[in-house]
């Protein structure tokens, strides 16, 4: 009863029970640990990934539901930290403890993919799914604005 899907362009399979949160399959079975466990309730965004090009809380996504789908994790966003969001994140020195930042970056990349020139209000609205306990929020806004400006 294995589930097959594509992750970061490669085919993957999981034998986990279909109800198992995708997060745990990604982290502990596929060993892609950039995606983080923060709350398990879809309220902090540390587990954010892209499924078929849209962001999703991997802790709220049963692995059984991703059969045949394309998943991108932080490891697959770019091979060399060259995604514009990653570059802007470094330019603005966004991360502090860094634990939430994979999720923040995946959320930001999702926003910019669908809305390349978001307003500040749209940025704040979109990013309010993701908690950063270190309070890197002002820098997150600046980094996203930087990507939007630099195009």
């Amino acid at each position: 009863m294995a589930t097959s899907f594509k992750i970061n362009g490669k085919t993957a399979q999981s034998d986990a029970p279909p109800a198992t949160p995708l997060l745990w399959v990604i982290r502990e079975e596929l060993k892609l640990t950039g995606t983080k466990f923060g709350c398990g309730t879809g309220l902090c965004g540390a587990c954010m990934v892209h499924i078929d090009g849209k962001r999703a809380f991997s802790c709220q996504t049963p692995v059984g539901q991703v059969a045949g789908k394309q998943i991108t994790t932080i490891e697959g966003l770019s091979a060399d930290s060259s995604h514009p969001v990653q570059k802007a994140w470094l330019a603005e020195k966004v991360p502090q403890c860094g634990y939430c930042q994979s999720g923040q970056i995946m959320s930001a990349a999702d926003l910019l993919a669908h809305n390349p020139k978001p307003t500040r209000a749209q940025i704040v609205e979109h990013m309010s799914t993701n908690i950063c306990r270190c309070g890197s929020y002002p820098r997150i806004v600046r980094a996203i604005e930087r990507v939007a400006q630099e195009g």
Partner: protein
Amino acid sequence: MTIAVRNADISRRSFMVGAAGLTFAVASGLRPAEAATRSGDVGLSPWVTISTDDTVSIMSPAAEMGQGSLTSLPLILSEELDADWAKVKIVVAPPNDDLYKNPTFGYMYTAGSNAVTSYFKPLRLFGAQVRKVLLANAASHWNVPVAELTTGPNVVIHEKSGRKLTYGEIAAFAEIPAKAPEVAESELKSPDKFRLIGHDVMRVELPSKVNGTAQYSIDVQVPGMLYGAILRAPVEGSGPEKIDEAGEKAIAQAIQASPAIKMGNVHIVPLPYGVGVIADTPWAAFDIKDRLKVTWTRTGKGWGFNSEKALPEFAKAARDMSQPTKLWGKAGDAIAALQTAATVVEAEYRNDLVYHAQMEPLNAVASVSADGQSCEVWCGVQSKTIAVTVAANALKIAPDKIIYHDMLMGGGFGRRGHRDEEYVHDAVVMSNAVKKPVKVMWTREDDIHNGRFNPLSAHFLRAGFDASGKLIAFHHRKACDEVTAFQDPVRYERQKGRDGIAYNGVDAPYYEIPNRLGEAVPRDTGLRTSSLRGIAHLTNVFAIESFMDELARKRGIDPATFRRDLVKSAPRATAIIDKVANMAGWGKTRENSALGFTYMNYSGTQIALAAEVTVDRRTGAIRVPNVWTALDPGINVQPNTILAQTESSIVYGLGFALFERITTDDGAVEQSGFYDYHVPRINEIPEMHIELVATNNHPTGVGQMATPLVAPAIANAVAELTGVRLRETPMTPDRVKKALG
């Protein structure tokens, strides 16, 4: 860049002298002169290794939790060494208190915004000593007087002859003197010559934090590793009385739900404080844990404790002069002065329990050997030497049998530096039960239910004015649990019961009031308590700065001016107050919003903060559109890091001020997740206007200085806007509505 340095590396490194390059094997922690005589010791470890390829490896002794010390500390050493930062390799120091202890704490402990301030002088001195050794070697190599030599980044220069030697070239032939060279303080660089200190560099681990490669303990993967979860007793000091037959039933049910669970790998581990579950996947471990039914012993002291009902009792105790107290700090005779004062003003403030909510739920990985006589540990902790001690004590083996792997922390905020580091202990005992590697993870629910909180507190304050209107007496009594007694009994005993984590600053020592008295009115609830960002000041300064505002208003004096008069002989303090007043446009009337002002001297860092608020009188919701703050922590070692920490401090202070609240009933925590514990999100934060003031004073802390000022600034602004004083944190909409009437 996380380098997991193992204990074992120490001896290997000490044998590097003369091999790959030049290892400055200077022992005895931060007193190199004395160390040279011990340079054959096995426990010897270097701070600096210069390789023949010109790489300069520097040990970083602090733990990294996002505050930047991993980078800042080696940078300080590099400044005096005149190292080329591009060639510096930062190495995480292994757990060794003799060598790498924080001089203030006496052990490797990263807390209290203290790393830069405590290591600053010793690291500069040591950098200068290594530079002197390089100069001496170059001088004898060229046969010229040392006085004719200078250095540039990683290079010794003889200007007269135009010759140069890189540090790496010198390392190939250099000899280390038996005795480390003396360096007088006057020989250190003057701040205007700094080319690293005061100039931002990229934090060394930052690139790993944008691509998922940063390694936290939760990310550790060990071959054959199993997963552990623990159901803990809801009250500290209790344990399982009876694991209801559900122990086995739970497993059976879980297996029914998840046929993939390999029965052979499932273990129920009774522990003195809970019941552990080990399984071959995390989902199986969590699932079985959630199905466990356990009857707990009623041995813990906290049973029956209801925090909401207790707070009024705390307030009563704070007012009750017959209650036993501990003196925290005093000047003059506040009690006598209050008796003779022409006017006495009293006020009371209260604070709920607060949770750290670090983003990485607590976890650790341990692998105990088959004979139980050695163990590898992977963890993120504020004290790595405590982690080693905890692991060794759990197995009753010697600390040198522990192989320690240093991991980044997904947030600390005071939660990861307790003397028992219980989540490290968890992993060790669980691994010991099966003699296999085990990753023990707490869920978010576990992390809250077993949280260790900033304590519940009630504050009673009195002030006395003489007939001329001069503030002559200040008395502050704080009723709360003694945090150090729980968090760190070793320190509590060493300090003879003096509890800085709970009471520091209760006497407002920076205010020039002739008679001041700060007293502890200790409670003993049995709750788990902890230092949290802002530490004692978080609640003390809410009380003090709210009270100062009330006093200023009673006297009809502008609140910023009132504070300024109370620090008038401290020019750095008046300067910071003036600066923030200026930044905020203090004194200007606004429509529908108002400002509140605050100031404090936080361990030598001067900081003032003003907040603008609006209040929705219908819902009671407070909004904070703007915060202005400026701080003077002396020398600004890494300005961008100070800015980041200040932004961070403001957000943390906002949560404390408006949202964050833990309650207990029958001793058990009532909140369970981010659905009922509200931390600030990006759509709730103010515009932050921050200015750094750099002075040539010894650098002081920057990691949490704004946090305690946010709540009183908000309360003071609400008082200005509505005339109503909010006396309790968090200032939730229901409380605001009630206060507005």
